[in-house]
């Protein structure tokens, strides 16, 4: 049971990974947005704080400078020297924003703000009540060393990354919570299949053995047909049974690799499916050369059985099942309904069928894929709607 649980939890479905990825990228994007917004707000708040600290000083300077301007106004034209102060630079502008006199390093002044930081200097714009020398605006400028800025950026980056990882950690649990219902239902199905598989073995063997043993020669034509149908049904169930057993029990078994004559195995399986092929009036188009592979026989059988049974199951009546074997490649194709483009990426997912109208648990192809992956065999799927599907294995 625990082995089963491990298997279910360790293998994420492709669709599951996809939705997880979507969720995570959305989540990360959101978190980054929130953190950067907070960072910007924090930065602005601190900048405001710094400026208001400077403002107190600048208001004092402005008062002093205004007094000096007043004196200069009264003694103007005899006195023409603009008052200077080592603690700040200043400028005066008239009501039409024309510069009357300026000692500023940064000449671009924003009259809409009282205090602001720009290009490394802080500007304080004082609107005067009495226009000494015609000056409506007195602008004070002081140097900003940027120390607060560096300190703040460091702080924001530090806390930001910390918060990011915290959220990431949180998101991981959230994601786990997110996929849990999906995983739970898969595990439930797994358990159910395992339990039922056991019970199927004995009756199925009995049916198949007894059909083989029946003497068809002495039968009436009508009964022989009925027996044939029973045979087909039993074999279909048998394939399913083998898949299930493989999935639940044999998968954990050690591989017994051997050199296999693929052509021989193919003929054997074709013979096995004979009744199914005949019932749909299908034709084989065989182009089989000699080829060998080192593999576990039971696993290769599962691959061939599933590909063949799909080619038969999804074929139309009087269609063709094609088999082409070469050294290093095996193709199995049909003239069936085809797989819609949008579903092609998911056909190897467990419990998914690309055509809902046909039976099957949809585990066949997922088994095929897993076995092929194990042996490093590539599989390519070519499909055209209403024309058919071609599966190509290459090793």
């Amino acid at each position, binding site marked *: 049971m625990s082995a089963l649980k491990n298997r279910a939890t360790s293998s994420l479905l492709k669709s599951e990974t996809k939705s997880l990825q979507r969720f995570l990228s959305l989540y990360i994007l959101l978190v980054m947005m929130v953190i950067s917004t907070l960072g910007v707000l924090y930065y602005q708040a601190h900048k405001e704080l710094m400026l208001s600290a400077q403002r107190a000083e600048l208001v004092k300077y402005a008062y002093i400078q205004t007094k000096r301007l007043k004196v200069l106004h009264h003694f103007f034209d005899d006195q023409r020297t603009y008052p200077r102060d080592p603690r700040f630079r200043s400028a005066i502008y*008239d*009501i039409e924003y024309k510069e*009357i*006199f300026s000692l500023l390093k940064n000449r671009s002044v924003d009259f809409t703000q009282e205090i602001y930081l720009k290009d490394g200097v802080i500007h304080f714009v004082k609107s005067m009540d*009495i226009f*000494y*020398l*015609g000056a409506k605006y007195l602008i004070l400028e002081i140097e900003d060393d940027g120390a607060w800025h560096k300190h703040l950026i460091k702080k924001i980056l530090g806390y930001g990354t910390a918060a990011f990882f915290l959220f990431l950690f949180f998101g991981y649990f959230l994601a786990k919570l997110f996929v849990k219902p999906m995983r739970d239902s898969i595990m439930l199905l797994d358990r159910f299949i395992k339990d039922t598989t056991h019970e199927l073995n004995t009756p199925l063997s009995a049916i198949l053995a007894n059909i083989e043993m029946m003497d068809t020669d002495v039968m009436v034509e009508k009964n022989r047909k009925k027996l044939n149908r029973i045979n087909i049904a039993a074999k279909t169930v048998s394939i399913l049974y083998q898949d299930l057993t493989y999935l639940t029990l044999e998968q954990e078994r050690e591989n017994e690799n051997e050199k296999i004559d693929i052509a021989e195995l193919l003929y054997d399986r074709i013979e096995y499916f004979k009744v199914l092929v005949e019932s749909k009036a299908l034709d084989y188009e065989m182009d089989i050369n000699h080829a060998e592979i080192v593999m576990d026989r039971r696993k290769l059988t599962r691959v061939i059985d599933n590909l063949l049974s799909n080619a038969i199951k999804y074929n139309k009546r009087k269609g063709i099942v094609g088999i082409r074997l070469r050294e290093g490649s095996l193709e199995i194709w049909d003239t069936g309904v085809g797989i819609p483009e949008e579903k092609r990426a998911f056909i190897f997912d467990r419990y998914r069928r690309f055509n809902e109208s046909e039976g099957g648990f949809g585990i066949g192809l997922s088994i095929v894929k897993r076995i092929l992956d194990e042996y490093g065999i590539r599989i390519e799927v070519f499909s055209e709607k209403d024309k058919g599907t071609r599966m190509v294995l290459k090793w």
Partner: protein
Amino acid sequence: MVKKLFMLLALSIGVFAENAYERNCVPCHRELPTDLQGMFKNYLLVYSGEETVKAALRHYMRYPSKHISVMSDLFIDTYGIKETLQISDQELKEAIDLYWEKYKVFGKLN
């Protein structure tokens, strides 16, 4: 006849040699204790910019009034409100422009 013409010529040269400001404003203001520069600075104190100052001056020369005067009440009470200036708009504009150029602060500070 020729003598008269010469006199007219000499007179007109004498008159036109001075500019609109010196012709229209300076003579009358010579009598006043506050000079034209002081009055100009008072205008700066209240109106600040070039266009604003000039517009206010133009207005005051046409419609002098105690309520909008930039001079102190004491000054007005002593010397009274000036008479409306009877010169052409063109002449007044020229006079004010020259007045501004003479006393403006722009380019004089160092």
